[in-house]
């Protein structure tokens, strides 16, 4: 029976080519608009570290002065002062913890004759690699002892290893950073955390660093830091990165494996904050924040607002396309009232007419979906040509492919319901009389 309906559908498409092409294009463009924007949304809004995102917490303390901009319960600075970060790290109350900052450091390639360049750097304490599931190709990170001894060690990215050493195992080689030599102890595998959730001050979808060194080493060697630097008073001596400087610029993350540990840690943070206030360092009332990865991304509004706006726009567009298809299919169905009348008079039940028109709508949706898939591919290609920092992250995967076809089929079936129902209502006697 289904085969017969397909045949009827094909015949009907042939008899009104213009209308059919119009409906196909409408469905295809509507679906493609939705799927292109949905793909971008899906890539940008997803969980960057699904296995652990509920156990990793960004830590905020309110170390600012009571001064002009104070609002009780307001959002504290999203980074910590170096003093607080080092204190929390020393006390090490979480399962794992890391203090860090992004930066740029002059790298002089040896032997390649290349000009020195600023390499993207991350200065972090030892737990960094374990906490954020950083994949290694060779070797591994450094230890807490290396942090304490300001060891001159460095981990480099896969891309940098390929650029400088042709992809060989470069462990043990020396890398010239600024005016010092650091020993390579590890090479990462390909790693592009997106969003760059553990430090969004360099751009929400910034690329990961090329060189990683212990935080302590980077400070001693005066490697420069990049990102957000928030000072609330004049800095004595001009060293805004000094231990006592009234500046928040260090990201601090804690890994807490169970909810019980997380709530205990929150209490600990409150105690810490109270202690700092009684010692005269903090002026504001205790106002600590602990946000797991997805909460953190939400609170920092990492997803570009244009992306969700585009998504709404695309779905609005699809709604218009569907209304249009309903109208056109209805016109087409009613135009065939005579044919329906004959079929009904020959004994076809309403159900059969309904099924026939739904099959027609469905096959329209299927073909429209395939066309829409091609257009979505084109749309994604266009997005990838863009200059945004996330352009190259956007790609089509199997789930999105299936969703595209599903959306096309579903929307065309929905659009076919009303015309099919109206077609089934056609009175055979009335039609035969007018023939």
């Amino acid at each position, binding site marked *: 029976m289904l085969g017969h309906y397909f045949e009827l559908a094909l015949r009907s498409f042939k008899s009104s080519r213009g209308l059919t092409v119009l409906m196909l294009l409408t469905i295809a463009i509507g679906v493609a608009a939705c799927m292109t924007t949905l793909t971008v949304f899906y890539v940008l809004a997803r969980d960057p570290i699904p296995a652990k995102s509920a156990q990793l917490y960004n830590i905020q303390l309110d170390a600012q002065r009571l001064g002009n901009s104070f609002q009780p319960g307001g959002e504290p600075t999203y980074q910590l002062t170096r003093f607080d970060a080092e204190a929390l790290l020393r006390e090490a109350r979480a399962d794992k913890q890391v203090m860090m900052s992004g930066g740029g450091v*002059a790298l*002089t390639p040896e032997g390649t004759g290349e000009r020195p360049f600023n390499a993207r750097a991350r200065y972090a304490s030892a737990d960094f690699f374990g906490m954020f599931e950083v994949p290694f190709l060779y070797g591994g990170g450094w230890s807490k002892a290396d942090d304490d001894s300001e060891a001159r060690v460095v981990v480099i990215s896969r891309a940098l290893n390929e650029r400088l050493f042709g992809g060989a195992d470069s462990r043990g080689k020396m890398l010239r950073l600024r005016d010092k030599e650091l020993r390579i102890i590890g090479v990462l595998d390909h790693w592009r955390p997106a969003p760059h959730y553990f430090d969004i001050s360099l751009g929400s979808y910034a690329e990961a660093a090329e060189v990683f060194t212990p935080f302590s080493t980077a400070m001693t060697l005066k490697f420069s830091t990049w990102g957000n630097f928030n000072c609330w008073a004049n800095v004595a001596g001009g060293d805004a990165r000094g231990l006592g400087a009234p500046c928040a610029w260090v990201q601090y993350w804690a890994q807490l494996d169970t909810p019980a540990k997380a709530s205990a840690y929150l209490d600990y943070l409150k105690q810490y904050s109270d202690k700092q206030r009684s010692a005269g360092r903090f002026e504001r009332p205790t106002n600590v924040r602990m946000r797991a990865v997805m909460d953190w991304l939400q609170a920092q509004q990492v997803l570009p607002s*244009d992306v969700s706006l585009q998504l709404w726009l695309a779905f*609005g567009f699809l709604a218009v396309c569907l209304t249009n298809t309903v109208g056109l299919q209805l016109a087409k169905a009613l135009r065939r009232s005579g044919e329906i009348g004959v079929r009904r008079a020959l004994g076809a039940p309403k159900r059969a007419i309904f099924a026939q028109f739904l099959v027609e709508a469905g096959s329209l949706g299927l073909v429209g979906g395939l066309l829409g898939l091609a257009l979505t591919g084109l749309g994604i290609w266009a997005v990838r040509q863009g*200059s945004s920092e996330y352009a190259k992250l956007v790609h089509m995967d199997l789930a999105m492919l299936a969703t595209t076809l599903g959306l096309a089929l579903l929307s065309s079936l929905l659009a076919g319901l009303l015309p099919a129902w109206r077609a089934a209502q056609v009175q055979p006697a009335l039609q035969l009389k007018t023939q």
Partner: protein
Amino acid sequence: MDLLPILATLKRHKTAAGLIVLQVALTCAIVCNALFLITQRVERIAEPSGLADQELVAISTTGVGPSQNPEAQTREDLQALRAVPGVQHVSIINQIPYGGQISVSGVRLQPDENSAGPSAANYSAAEGWLQTLGLKLVAGRDFDATEYLDDKTLSENPDTKVPALVINRSLAERLFPGANPIGQKVYGLGGGATQIVGVVEQLISPHPGGNEEMNRYSMVMPVRQSFRGGAYMLRCAPQDRERVLKAGVAALDKTGPGRILRQQKLLSEMRDDYYAADRNMVRLLVGVCLALMVVTAFGIVGLASFWVQQRTRMIGTRRALGATRGQILRYFQAENFLLSAAGIAIGMLGAYGISLLLMQSYEMPRLPWSYLPAGALVLWALGQLAVLAPARRAAALPPVAALRS
């Protein structure tokens, strides 16, 4: 024109008529808001920087290792850049509009550290900045030679007095509404009071376009950066820019070999890059509006054609009874006008609803009323245009058509 017969006919085609109304309503609601979004983005992209965008190039470098005397190196660099053929003015500033970085400071009207005051982008600039950047001074004067100090002095001792300040007009109006800002004192930049000596017409924030207050305010301090923290700005004739950029980089390579080039770009390129996302959004919105209108137009053409076909007998009869072609044509036009009007009425409510949602979720301003009649006109015109072909086909039907079918 008698509308009653039209209404009577439409009553018999409630579903199809309803679909056209719905489609027009959705299109109207989306197009009104999209037009508003487009206008806002276009305004943002067009915001003047106050600088001579088409005549400036920026070069910034940094040393590989610690530098013995960056201040002396900077003086040498500036001299070498001035000697580059085609260069009219050279200066060094701490941050460039559209440069991707922003430094802001709070300014206060009282010495008390806990008093409130707005935040403003704090540019610091060395001698010759006003001519180099091409800013327009509307009150007061440029810094005089004795007012400049080295950034090194200020960072080593943050209580150093910054003697003079030039602010932009927006900040002047914020700090001293209705009063003359020249000679007024502000606090929070270095130690003690800083006197405002000049006001420039416009000086855009390094990171413009945000909703926050600080995106509108900027100020310039007479503080000389060294090459490590600043960017050299070179002004030349627009057609010389590419050549000056190359020659400038070569000159810096000679005065301080082996340095890292952080940035070498035309200001106009930086501006284009900065607004790339906004331009994309405008293109996308325009595309969606056009696509919406095309789809709606085709929907109207499709249904109107169907109606014409269905009413062949009626049209023939009317023609036979003496109706003119014009009357038939106007019948279909009036019908479309009515349907569009209903759609537009609902669409306006929808547009307002969408605008409320956008205000809530995207911090957009309210949709100005003027967009509603604009959207209505567009959709009425679109409907009339779309119905024209089917209506003319109907009008062209000979009276005998009624008898033949």
